[in-house]
């Protein structure tokens, strides 16, 4: 059994299922992300791991121990809340020391432990600061320190960077990653921000409507999404309807306006057969401009600094093709779709 084992978990709050038959395995020491739009069930799943909600059915086990009947205060997990939930009546030191009462440490051992943790989250010397005199980033660090000081087996993070501005968020992302590497405990992160999930995590589970769509490394999610829903959620992607003609070393497909194309058979999602109607998908940065190819016309062009983003209208297709790259010579253009970058998804 893996370190964190979630098996066939269901949860509803009297209405439709919020978490629908979810199974997940997270090995020890992994930085794992639950990614999905709001209402997809990711926070409910996290709260079930923490013990604030009980699964209607299925089991949650940590390090071989089934946790379903264990209350939150006895679980080997700690959580960084979205609102941070810093105790407003306690200063920074007492917030961090809050969860250490039961250890009954002598005063200086307690002080040393809290000071070490203050240093880990780079809040040295702020132990005496009142809770209402902290900036957003500092509150985030206190919440992190307060959870980590208990040395949990799993740290749960509920949208931990959502309340921070963009620059601070980037700094904290790097720090979170560094802290996780340093102390080596398992992190489970909930976020709706795909960039955050991709840049922080070892693996990501993409959720929608209470179900898990795909669990994979960030690179695999980006390069080989298993379905249109995943592809849509992770970055931008162009889709073309196509029909499979032949599958051998390479697969031949009829892709309408793009003509007949050959692509590596490995680029087709498993289970696709000859005659199937499929979606061909390609990322904007893999579509290129060339002297010959499919003729089109640039509809919009947005300058983004190191590269530009274009919408190219193709004859016989209502939806423009997104292209990301360097500006072509003006006027009518030709776009090319490198076959090795095309992937075939079920419709």
């Amino acid at each position, binding site marked *: 059994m893996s370190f964190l084992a979630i098996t066939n978990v269901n949860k509803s709050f009297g209405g439709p299922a919020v978490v629908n038959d979810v199974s997940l395995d997270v090995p020890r020491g992994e930085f794992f992300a639950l990614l999905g739009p709001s209402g997809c069930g990711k926070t409910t799943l996290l709260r079930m791991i923490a013990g604030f909600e009980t699964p209607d059915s299925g089991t949650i086990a940590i390090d071989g121990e089934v946790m379903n009947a264990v209350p939150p205060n006895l679980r080997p997990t700690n959580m960084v*809340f979205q609102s941070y939930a810093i*105790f407003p009546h306690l200063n920074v030191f007492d917030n961090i020391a809050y969860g250490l*009462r039961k250890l009954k440490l002598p005063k200086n051992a307690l002080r040393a432990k809290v000071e070490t943790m203050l240093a880990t989250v780079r809040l040295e010397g702020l132990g005496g600061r009142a809770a209402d005199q902290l900036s957003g980033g500092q509150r985030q660090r206190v919440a992190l320190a307060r959870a980590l000081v208990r040395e949990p087996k799993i740290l749960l993070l509920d949208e931990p960077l959502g309340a921070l501005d963009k620059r601070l968020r980037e700094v904290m992302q790097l720090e979170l990653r560094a802290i996780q590497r340093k102390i080596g405990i398992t992190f489970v992160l909930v976020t709706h921000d795909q960039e955050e999930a991709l840049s922080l995590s070892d693996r990501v589970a993409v959720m929608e409507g209470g179900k898990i769509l795909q669990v994979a490394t960030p690179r695999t999610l980006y390069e080989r999404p298993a379905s249109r829903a995943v592809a849509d959620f992770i970055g931008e992607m162009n889709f073309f309807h196509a029909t499979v003609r032949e599958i051998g070393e390479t697969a031949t497909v009829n892709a309408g306006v793009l003509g007949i194309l050959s692509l590596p058979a490995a680029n087709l999602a498993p289970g696709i057969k000859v005659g199937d109607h499929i979606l061909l998908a390609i990322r904007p940065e893999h579509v290129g401009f060339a002297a010959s190819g499919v003729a089109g016309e640039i509809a919009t062009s947005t300058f983004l600094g190191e590269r530009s983003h274009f919408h190219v209208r193709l004859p016989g297709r209502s939806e423009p093709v997104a292209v990301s790259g360097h500006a072509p010579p003006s006027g009518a253009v030709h776009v090319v779709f490198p076959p090795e970058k095309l992937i075939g998804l079920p419709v």
Partner: protein
Amino acid sequence: MKNKTLTLYALAYLAFLYVPVLVLPIFSFNDSQFIAFPLSGFTTRWYAGLAADSAMQHALINSLKVGLTTALLSTLLGLMAAKAVTRYRMRGTGAIMAFISLPLFIPDIVLGISLVLLLGTVGLPLSLAAVVLGHLLVCVPFSLTVLVARFEGFDKNLEEASADLGEGSWMTFWRVTFPLMLPGIIASLLLTFITSFDEFLVAYFLSGTEATLPIYIWGQLRFPERLPMVLALGATILTVSVALVVLAEYVRNLGVKKPMVGA
């Protein structure tokens, strides 16, 4: 022109509200048995008379006993009910709130009569304890209102964070809920104490032979010569009541300026 009219109206309104109240302290210092203008000189002898009146002091002690007990019980009950309606997913929280608040809208005289009948039916004697029970009906809604507002003002995640950090529900209450609720709890204690201390009708029906202070005052009104002393007593109660209400409001608003949520 219009502003002048409005100012006059406002002044007249304030006079209407507060002149009757001012009669009490003014005549309590007047050196005459008769409550009539012109005033005949300054004296503190009515206040001195109060200090020597043992029946009055007995009634005062009764009122303090009833008031303190009512305040403590009402705040405790209100705290539990407020936690239940704000923290748990339950059916019918609206109905529960309405039922708890209903006694506020029942005329005190009706409440007094029905409580007398009820006590008689079950064979309980009229006593100060019976007065406390009656006052609880009137006071719990006040406690509930003050405490629910306070509960709604703080992030539910704070209690979850405490559980997450290893504390059970009892220690979570003492280490997080209670300190954060304290201003609301103090406000509730003060408000319910005042309400019970000033209450006459329910106490009149239920107190039996033990008079509370308002009942004692009512009894004294039969003796014209004792009226100035009653005025002195009334002025004292008025001053203390106003002070307590102001204090309750001040405490209740403590910490409201600072956001109590974690974000």
